[in-house]
């Protein structure tokens, strides 16, 4: 069985600062994908960034980047130059066979002006 753990239930950051959200996972599969999803208050869940496990290079998407440590089964999300619109719940997820996702418990991020 897969597990995904987010150890930070809540975090806050000042606007324009950098924040890192932690995620660890456990899987028995060799080829898997990892995701960070964002769920703004009362809005749709959207994909932030994706990492293929077979790629050593860390994924980046504009202000969002990951630190993927495969041996440690760690997949943290770094948000640079935080903006008020980044305020949301962030969920880490691991894809396994059949395109199923296992989600972590989420981290509530508050960006303060």
């Amino acid at each position: 069985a897969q597990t995904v753990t987010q150890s930070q239930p809540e975090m806050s950051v000042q606007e324009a600062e950098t924040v890192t959200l932690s995620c660890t996972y456990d899987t028995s599969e060799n080829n898997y994908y990892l995701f960070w999803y964002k769920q703004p208050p009362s809005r749709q869940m959207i994909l932030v960034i994706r990492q293929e496990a077979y790629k050593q290079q860390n994924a980046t998407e504009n202000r969002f980047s990951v630190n993927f440590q495969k041996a440690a089964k760690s997949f943290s999300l770094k948000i640079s130059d935080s903006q008020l619109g980044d305020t949301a719940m962030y969920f880490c997820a691991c894809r396994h066979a059949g395109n199923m996702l296992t989600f972590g418990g989420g981290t509530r991020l508050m960006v303060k002006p």
Partner: protein
Amino acid sequence: EADIYQTPRYLVIGTGKKITLECSQTMGHDKMYWYQQDPGMELHLIHYSYGVNSTEKGDLSSESTVSRIRTEHFPLTLESARPSHTSQYLCASSDDGGTYEQYFGPGTRLTVT
């Protein structure tokens, strides 16, 4: 913005009523999913479908049922609503064509009184 729709967005209903939550997607995805999410909490998979006439139960036991008669439509039904069914229900779809991203609908927030 993902082309996946859910209706109603909010529903308050009395105990014992039968309800159907609608989910439709226009992306032609074969795989569709239903998740249950309590406010600010993780997502739990309750049903999924690999395609037309395919339905499977997810990790979290649910008294709801689903059907998949058309590719684009994946409704969820509760025959007799109870207060314990109060939650948010998220529908998602995905393709297996490389990205494996799941696209989420806006959700239905259900309250059973």
